[in-house]
């Protein structure tokens, strides 16, 4: 074995050959090259007996994007964990401050790119509150319909990722079939497959069209069977269940203290769902249940999302039955200048409460648009759930919380 001391090598800079760079080669120790800034950082970057750092990411096969996690391990056991963010930071909040109210919507799309409609929705709702716009009921129903479709797509993808992080190769491709169906039909509706830019202030961009409806009808006839078939790939798999059970357990109080929302909170037994707890859009008119589970472990989080898919199918069915006629856009002036004020709007995205807080100063640009992203909140609880588990479980726990790095890094 070579020496463990860092080997440094001097070489000329690629930019300017006169500049000589001294760089450390060989093993990369993920310890920051400056004195610790906080108590926590000092504590984390001090190695105990028999411990070592393992740097996962930003290029790692299973960090769901460009997340970097510094893991402190003792043998195979993770003793502590420090997620390092910012590799995908685009400054969306700043961009939104410098664009007008319509333009801001398309900046919000790529935040949680697997469920992009839910990023537009709270912003649109907040802007509508600022301007006191009433959205036509047909537009609200279309929003709910497309949103629930996308929720199913997102949960299908979650199922595949979950299995992939545990080493199963097949489920991700099976669930991508389902997701692709949905994304194709949303493409027919909105014109884009992934980043839709479909919800507008005061309504939606276009009415339901024939291609969307025929694709949706085809898919709805076999959605339940397809979902059950995909579910059966993993639910009865002994290895999968034994790995997920009792892993990353979080109790109700801790979940509330960690500000968790969505399926992760409901898996601990708290029936908090923004669709029912703080109803918006036409959800009060629709009949659906809020599934909860009490275990709070990774298996519960996984199974809960499967239950939600069934509820979403119910909602889609009701939306199609109750879809009213009428316009899909409210009458609005072309240039939007809301009165000065503040508005907060939240929706239940597939990952939890997705909220926006908009401040208007009377101009045509938002003075401040705060984006509250559930992925960001959930990712910080990995540090709480992981200690004591094994390296192999790091990715399983992270996948069960289902963070999307585009949303985490804004």
């Amino acid at each position, binding site marked *: 074995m070579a020496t463990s001391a860092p080997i440094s090598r001097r070489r000329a800079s690629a930019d300017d050959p006169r500049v000589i760079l001294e760089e450390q080669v060989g093993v990369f120790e993920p310890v920051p090259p400056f004195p610790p800034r906080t108590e926590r950082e000092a504590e984390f970057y001090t190695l105990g007996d028999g411990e070592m750092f393992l740097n996962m990411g930003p290029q790692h096969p299973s960090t769901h994007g460009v997340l970097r996690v510094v893991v402190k391990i003792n043998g195979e056991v993770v003793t502590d964990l420090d997620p390092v963010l910012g590799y995908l930071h685009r400054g969306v*909040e700043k961009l939104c401050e410098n664009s007008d109210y319509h333009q801001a919507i398309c900046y919000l799309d790529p935040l949680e790119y697997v469920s992009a409609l839910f990023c537009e929705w709270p912003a649109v709702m907040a802007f509508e509150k600022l301007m006191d716009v009433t959205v036509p009921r047909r537009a609200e129903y279309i929003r709910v319909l497309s949103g629930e479709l996308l929720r199913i797509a997102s949960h299908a993808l979650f199922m595949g990722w979950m299995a992939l992080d545990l080493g199963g190769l097949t489920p991700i491709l099976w669930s991508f079939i389902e997701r692709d169906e949905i994304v194709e039909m949303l493409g027919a509706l909105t014109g884009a497959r992934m980043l839709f830019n479909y919800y507008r202030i005061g309504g939606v961009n276009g009415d339901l069209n024939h291609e969307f409806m025929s694709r949706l009808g085809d898919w709805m006839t076999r959605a339940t069977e397809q979902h059950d078939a995909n579910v059966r790939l993993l639910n009865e798999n002994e290895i999968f269940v034994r790995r997920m059970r009792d892993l990353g357990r979080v109790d109700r109080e801790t979940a509330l203290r960690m500000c968790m929302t969505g399926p992760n909170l409901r898996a601990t037994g708290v029936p908090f769902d923004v669709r029912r707890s703080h109803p918006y859009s036409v959800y009060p008119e629709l009949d659906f249940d809020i599934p909860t589970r009490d275990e709070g472990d990774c298996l519960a989080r996984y199974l809960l999302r499967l239950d939600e898919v069934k509820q979403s199918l119910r909602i889609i069915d009701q939306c199609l039955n109750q879809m009213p006629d009428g316009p899909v856009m409210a009458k609005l002036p072309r240039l939007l200048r809301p009165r000065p004020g503040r508005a907060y709007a939240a929706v239940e995205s597939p990952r939890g409460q997705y909220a926006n807080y908009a401040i208007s100063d009377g101009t045509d640009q938002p003075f401040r648009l705060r984006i509250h992203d559930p992925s960001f909140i959930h990712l910080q609880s990995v540090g709480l759930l992981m200690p004591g588990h094994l390296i192999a479980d790091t990715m399983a726990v992270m996948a069960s919380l289902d963070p999307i790095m585009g949303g985490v890094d804004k």
Partner: protein
Amino acid sequence: MDRALRRRLEARFGDVLSGPVRQRHDETEIRIGPADLTVVMRALHDEPDLRFRFLADLAGVDSGSAMQVVYHLWSETTPDWLRVIADNLPRDDARIPSVTFLWKGAEWMEREAYDMFGITFEGNRDLRRIYMPPDYTSFPLRKDFFLADDAARSPGAGVRHMERTHSPRNATPAAVVRQAKGA
């Protein structure tokens, strides 16, 4: 709009509120000073007729004249979102107590507010930059932030050359001096 909540808040916090309780749509808003934050938040969280157990959002805001920290709370006792605005933080040295003693999950949101606005949350164990690089010197979401200045001042500028000095022809000492003089 939940009038009962407004009455309860006025009765309970009437002396610390720095403005009237405002209500619009499904939001109720109170304004307090940063010094009262700990007391107000603890009361909102713990007292049985309030029970705001759920911190929905924590946002830093630069209002142009002062810094604000805005909290959104949810409770099953009311159909409204409760917005608590901790107002009038000085722009040059904004300090406010952390709420991590109630909601540990606020830690990263406070880190983000620190990173973007330079608001110091006293009591947060881990108040370091979260998005921007650790050696970044300014706070991007403040209203006095100008992108070009800060990019030039950030340490990254010295490591990777700007495009003007990239080609060796331009990188002669005379050209570098010329650039430094701002020609």
